[in-house]
């Protein structure tokens, strides 16, 4: 299947799916040629308007979820300024993978790249080999050198002109003097090269949908001192909370955009676990991050937006003489989450599984309390190794604990032991676990140190496991 659009007087292919590409159809090919090549071709009209709308919708979704400064990069890209936002998602690499996976889940195949500049990220995302790439800081030049010149976002006539002259890769362009090229092709070529390498700034004009509650304040004189910024944040937050109250909303994610006099935008993003419209709390979260703003020559406009807002009803404070009030810790959770990242703040909840590492799961810190706990009749170690470590042990088969074992090069004589506690594999998880068995023992050495070890397999049937011994935890 292909999508066909109009280019001047001709009908050309705008996009081709995998099956069509296997038949040799490429975007840019005249539609008539394609029909001749593949008689059974399904041809649909390309709707540029709908494409742009979808792109905008994805951009807004990304802004609510990932970073405050997001813009559509037509025809097929979205650009995000992730500075100061990636740590909330577990680092740049993790964030890219999560973006690609989430888009894939909704049926969009995407490639994601983090680089110093918009130009470099654009080039590597379209012409790189892998789905997700993190270009290290300062590595933009190396990353784009090997790519074809078309990656530089140049008009088609410049690209074909350069090809005629024998320029294939960006490194060819970088190797020759600038002046003759500028004379021949105009300033556009030099500008795009500088933008890719980061010598020329390229501001991103962020999307701001109408329905988002936002307030802004422009300054006659640019401001720069942290105290001044803090003071105005205080005023903006109060104004924002008033607007939120009018609509009965509470903010879950708040973005502060600082428009600098040199036409760049800096952003702070804070998130809360529950919807909030308390000026004091939001102000505290934002002022914690003021030091990350670089005012440069000054900030001429501050705008504050509640990017993600949820209905928040007024609640009546119950004052009881008898009951002890439960302290509200959502404020603390928000402060910590904005320092270390939302994913690093969690509670543990039980899962009905006998396999120790599967018996716990992480839940959000403000998730409702289930009151559930683990069965208490089996001893459990206070430290569980991230993955079981192989130990050398000597034991009588089938069901005796080892007489000694050596772990990390130290030999321990087993003085006392308890067990076995047999854990069966969970056959519904996969074929490998159909007959797998672990026999857990609690053992104590001469010094009184207590370990949690297990044997893979039941000691008789080789199909149940390798019969090797592992150390899985340490008791207190």
């Amino acid at each position, binding site marked *: 299947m292909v999508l066909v659009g109009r280019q001047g007087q001709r009908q050309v292919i705008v996009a081709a799916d995998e099956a069509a590409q296997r038949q040799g159809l490429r975007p840019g090919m005249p539609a008539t040629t394609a029909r001749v090549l593949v008689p059974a071709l399904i041809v649909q009209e390309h709707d540029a308007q709908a494409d742009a709308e979808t792109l905008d919708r994805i951009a807004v979704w990304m802004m609510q979820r990932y970073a405050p400064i997001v813009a559509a990069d037509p025809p097929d890209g979205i650009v995000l300024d992730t500075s100061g936002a990636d740590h909330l998602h577990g680092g740049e690499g993790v964030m890219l993978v999560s973006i690609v996976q989430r888009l894939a889940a909704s049926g969009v195949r995407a490639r994601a790249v983090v680089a110093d500049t918009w130009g470099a990220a654009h080039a590597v995302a379209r012409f790189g080999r892998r789905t997700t790439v993190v270009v290290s800081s300062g590595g933009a030049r190396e990353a784009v050198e090997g790519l074809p010149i078309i990656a530089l976002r140049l008009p088609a006539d410049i690209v074909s002109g350069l090809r005629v002259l024998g320029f294939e890769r960006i490194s060819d362009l970088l190797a020759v003097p600038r002046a003759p090229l500028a004379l021949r092709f105009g300033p556009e070529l030099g500008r795009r090269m500088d933008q890719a390498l980061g010598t020329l700034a390229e501001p991103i004009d962020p999307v701001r949908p109408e329905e988002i509650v936002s307030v802004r304040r422009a300054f006659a004189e640019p401001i720069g001192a942290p105290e001044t910024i803090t003071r105005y944040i205080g005023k903006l937050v109060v104004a924002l909370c008033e607007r939120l109250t009018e609509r009965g909303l509470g903010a879950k994610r708040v973005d502060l955009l600082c428009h600098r006099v040199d036409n760049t935008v800096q952003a702070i993003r804070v998130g809360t676990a529950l919807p909030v419209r308390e000026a004091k709390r939001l102000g505290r979260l934002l002022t914690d991050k003021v030091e990350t703003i670089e005012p440069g020559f000054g900030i001429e406009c501050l705008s504050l937006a509640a990017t993600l807002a949820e209905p928040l009803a007024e609640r009546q404070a119950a004052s009881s003489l008898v009951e002890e009030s439960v302290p509200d810790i959502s404020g603390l959770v928000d402060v*910590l989450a904005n320092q270390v990242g939302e994913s690093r703040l969690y509670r*543990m909840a039980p899962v009905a599984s006998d396999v120790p590492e599967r018996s*716990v799961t992480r839940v959000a810190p403000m998730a409702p*309390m289930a009151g*559930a706990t683990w069965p208490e009749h089996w001893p459990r170690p206070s*430290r569980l190794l991230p993955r079981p470590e192989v130990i050398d042990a000597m034991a009588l088969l089938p069901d005796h604990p080892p007489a000694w074992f050596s772990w990390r090069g130290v030999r321990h004589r087993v003085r006392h032991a308890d067990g076995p506690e047999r854990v069966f594999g969970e056959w519904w998880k996969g074929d490998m676990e159909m007959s797998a068995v672990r026999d857990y023992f609690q*053992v104590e050495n001469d010094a009184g140190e207590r370990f949690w070890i297990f044997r893979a397999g039941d000691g008789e049937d080789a199909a149940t496991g390798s019969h090797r011994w592992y150390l899985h935890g340490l008791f*207190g």
Partner: protein
Amino acid sequence: MDSNTEDANVPKHGSGRRRDEVMEALRDRIESLEGSKRRIRKVLPFGVPRIDNKLPGGGLAVGALHEVAGGGNGTVDGAAAALFVAGIAARTHGQVLWCITRADLFAPALAQAGLTPDRVIYVEAGDDKAILTCLEEGLRHGGLGAVIGEVARMSMTASRRLQLRAEATGTMGIALRRWRRPADAVDFGQPTAAMTRWRVSVLPSVPLPVPGVGRHRWLVELIRCRAGESADFEVDACDAEGRLHLPADLADGSGAAEGGYGRAAG
């Protein structure tokens, strides 16, 4: 039972009452010299008179910072120390913030020490500095039962800040000292502003008449205690409500009848 054990600790020349008064007066003077205006008002007793008697105010001060480390290999894994701390936290009210660098704490074991999973919020912070920041933030909030941080290096300045925060809000702060290598544990000798300093090491469990591992036993050393003496205790590990017990074969008088876990062990 209380009176029995108290008597056992006081020298038997009849002047026990007076000695207590003198000690109390001396403690008052030391505190006024230290400049902290507030007396320790709230304490969390261990419920073991032998330990509580050694602590000023008869228990672990609530609005204060305490340090706990493991002994031997426990300096690296901190397994026993974590349970000891969990037992203390379990006996406080409200939620508990536990700041960690390595995610190897096994929640079911904490639940067995009385600290139910709903009460613990874990923060995975990257390094010591981030842990100390989170600890301070937690202590500043004031609504938590206890704030625990697994930290290797803690300077005098950092501990002083934490101690002041804890005093201001009345939240218990516990620094669970845990190092990457056993050799780094010499750091535990450096002075800090913490109210008490504990070391918890594992001891061989109570022998049973049948094969098996008996009740876990610890050597709990009170290495430093502001306005108090250091001491060490041999105790049975936390029970399901986070309480320590004196081993039956070591407890004197009626204590044996109460903590009769190991008696069957003979």
